[in-house]
C-alpha cells in the first residue's frame, strides 16, 4: 500500500503539483482552506476569487468555481457575486499588497459594510511576484528591493496591522483572525469559523495568514521558519481578534487562540 499525501477533496488533482515556489506558504494556506471547504461540505457553493501577485497562481487550484483579477479588486468582484446570488459562499484570496495597499479601500469598505464574504489575506511581508518590493507589512529593518537598507519606520512607517484594523472598523457580527502557516490545525479552524460566519449570514469574515517567501526573503529552510515563527509574530500576534457572540467558543473551548 502506497501512502499518498492527504489532499483536500476540494483541490483539483489535475492542477497539482501546484505552481508555487518550494517553501512558499500559499500551498499550506490553501490546504487549510481546502480542508475547511471539505469539512463544511460547501464545495458546490463556494466561489473562489484570487488576486494578482502569487495568489493568482491559484486560479485553477480548486475544484470550485474560481475567478481571478488584480489589485485587491477580488473583494468587490466577490461582493458583486454574493450580492447577486447570496446562496453562494464567496471567498476573496489575496496578498498583503492587494489588501492593504492598492486595494485597501475595498477591504476597508467591504468590512465596513459587513459584506457576507470571507477575505483571506496572505501576509509574507513583501510583494513577491513583482520581485520582492516593500509592502505595508514589511518589518522594520527588513531588506527588500525597494528598501535595500532595511525598512526605516521613520521614513515609511510601521508594519500594517490588517486584522486589528478590520476588527476596529467592523461591527459585532464580523469574524477576524490572524493565523499562520506554521499552525495548520489552528489555521484550518479559523477558516472554518470564517466561512461559517458567512454561511450563517452573520457578516464579514477576515483571516490574515502569516506566510513564507523564501525566494524573496533569500532564506534557507531554517531561516525561513525562524522568520515566520520568531520575527513575524513579534509584530503580528496570531489568534482570533473578533468572534461574534453567536458563533460561540471554538472547539478548544477558548474564545481566542493565541
Amino acid at each position, binding site marked *: 500500500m502506497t501512502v499518498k499525501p492527504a489532499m483536500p477533496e476540494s483541490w483539483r488533482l489535475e492542477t497539482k503539483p501546484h505552481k508555487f515556489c518550494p517553501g512558499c506558504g500559499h500551498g499550506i494556506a490553501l490546504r487549510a482552506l481546502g480542508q475547511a471547504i471539505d469539512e463544511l461540505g460547501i464545495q458546490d457553493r463556494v466561489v473562489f476569487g484570487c488576486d494578482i501577485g502569487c495568489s493568482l497562481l491559484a486560479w485553477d487550484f480548486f475544484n470550485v468555481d474560481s*475567478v481571478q483579477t*488584480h489589485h485587491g479588486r477580488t473583494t468587490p468582484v466577490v461582493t*458583486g457575486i454574493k*450580492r*447577486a446570488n447570496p446562496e453562494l459562499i464567496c471567498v476573496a484570496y489575496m496578498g498583503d499588497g492587494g489588501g492593504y495597499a492598492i486595494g485597501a479601500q475595498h477591504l476597508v469598505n467591504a468590512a465596513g459594510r459587513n459584506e457576507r464574504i470571507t477575505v483571506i489575506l496572505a501576509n509574507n511581508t513583501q510583494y513577491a511576484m513583482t520581485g520582492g518590493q516593500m509592502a505595508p507589512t514589511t518589518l522594520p529593518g527588513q531588506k527588500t528591493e525597494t528598501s535595500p537598507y532595511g525598512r526605516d519606520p521613520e521614513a515609511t512607517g510601521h508594519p500594517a496591522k490588517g486584522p486589528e484594523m478590520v476588527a476596529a472598523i467592523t461591527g459585532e457580527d464580523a469574524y477576524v483572525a490572524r493565523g499562520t502557516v506554521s499552525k495548520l490545525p489552528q489555521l484550518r479552524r479559523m477558516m472554518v469559523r470564517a466561512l461559517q460566519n458567512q454561511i450563517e449570514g452573520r457578516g464579514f469574515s477576515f483571516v490574515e495568514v502569516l506566510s513564507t517567501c523564501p525566494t524573496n526573503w533569500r532564506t534557507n529552510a531554517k531561516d525561513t521558519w525562524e522568520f515566520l515563527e520568531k520575527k513575524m509574530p513579534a509584530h503580528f500576534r496570531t489568534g482570533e481578534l473578533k468572534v461574534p457572540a453567536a458563533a460561540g467558543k471554538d472547539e478548544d473551548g477558548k474564545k481566542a487562540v493565541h
Partner: protein
Amino acid sequence: MSGAVMAEKRVFMTGNEVVAWAAVAARADVMYGYPITPQNEVMHYWTRLAPKHGKIFLQTEDELSAGFATIGGVLAGKKCFTATAGPGNVLMQEPVSMAEMMRLPVVVVVMQRGGPSTATVIYSQQEVTLTTFGGNGEGFRVVYSTAGLQELYDHTIKAFNTAWRYRFPVFVLADGYQAKMREPLTVYDPVERGIEPVAPEPYVGRPGKPGADRPPGHYRNTYNTEEELYAVVLEQAAEYERVAPEIVEHEESGAEGAAVLVVAHGVVARAAKQAVELLRAEGLKAGYFRPVTLRPLPAEALRTAAGRAGRLLVVESAYGQFARLVRDALYGLTVDVVPLYKPGLGITAEEIASRCRELAASSARTE
C-alpha cells in the same frame, strides 16, 4: 420575467431617469454604482424603483469597486450595469478591461462631463477616446452615442441585448446635457414590441459539484506566455470584426453631392441635423452624417458618404477626439476635413450653419 414591466406611455423626464427606467425595461437585475455628477440621479431613480421591481443596488466605495462588483454580478448570472462620468470613467476602464479580456457582458452608462480631471460637472464630449479605446487593451467594446432621450431609452435597452448577445462590454455614451435635460419620449416594454431580452447565464454557481458533476468554472484574465495571450487577443479581434457589421449603426441625410457634409455624434448631432435642414432650406447643399456606434465605427458608410461630399465639417464638444476616429476611417480619401471643436461647450445649430455658410462661400470663391 414575463409580463409587461411598464405600459407604453408618453413621458416627460430627465435622461438619468430614462436610464433607470430603460434598465428596468431591459430586465436588468442589479446596479452597482458610485456617486459622480452628472449621473447621480440614475442611482437615485434606480434605488426608488428597485424595491418595486425586486432589483438590487449597492453603493460601492469607488468606481473601481462599482465596475468589479458589476463583473461579479454578471458572473453570478445577473444582468448588471453601472453608470459613471469623467474621473469615474477613468477608473471604470480598469474593470471594463477585465470584462473585455474575459468577454463578459457588462453595461456602462457614461454621462460625459468636462475634462481633463475634475474640470466641469456639466457637459462635454471629451470621453470619446477613453470610452472607445480606454484601458490597456484593444478597445473591443461597443459604444452607442445617443442624441436624445428617446434614443437614450432605446439604446440603453439595446445595450443589454448587445452585451449579452455578443459578450463584449457595452457603453451607452451620453452626456451631462442628456442626463439633466427633460424632454418628451415614449417608454415601453421592449417585449411588447417584440424585442426579447437575451437571458443571462451564470458563470459561477451552476448546479452540481464542480469536479464531480461538472467541470469547475475557472475564469482568469492572466496568461503565462506571449503566444498564449496573442492567440486569445487575435481570437477576440476576429470575433469583434465578425460581429461588427451586425452592430454598427449610423444616420445620414443628403450626403450625396453635399458641398459640406456635417459629421457629428451624440447630442451635437441634433444641432448638426437642424443646421443642415436650415441650410438646405436656404438652398445650400449640406449633408449630415452621424455614427450612432462610435465602436465599432460605421467606417464603410462614412467613407461612402464622404466620397460623395465636397468637404467634411467635423463638429464636436471636444478637441478632435471624435475627428480622430473619423480621419482614421477616412484614411486614403482626399476629402478635406474641417474641424469645429468646442471642448466642453455646447454647440448650437446656428453656429454650425454659419460655419457651413463660410465654407460654402470660400469654396465658391476658389472655384
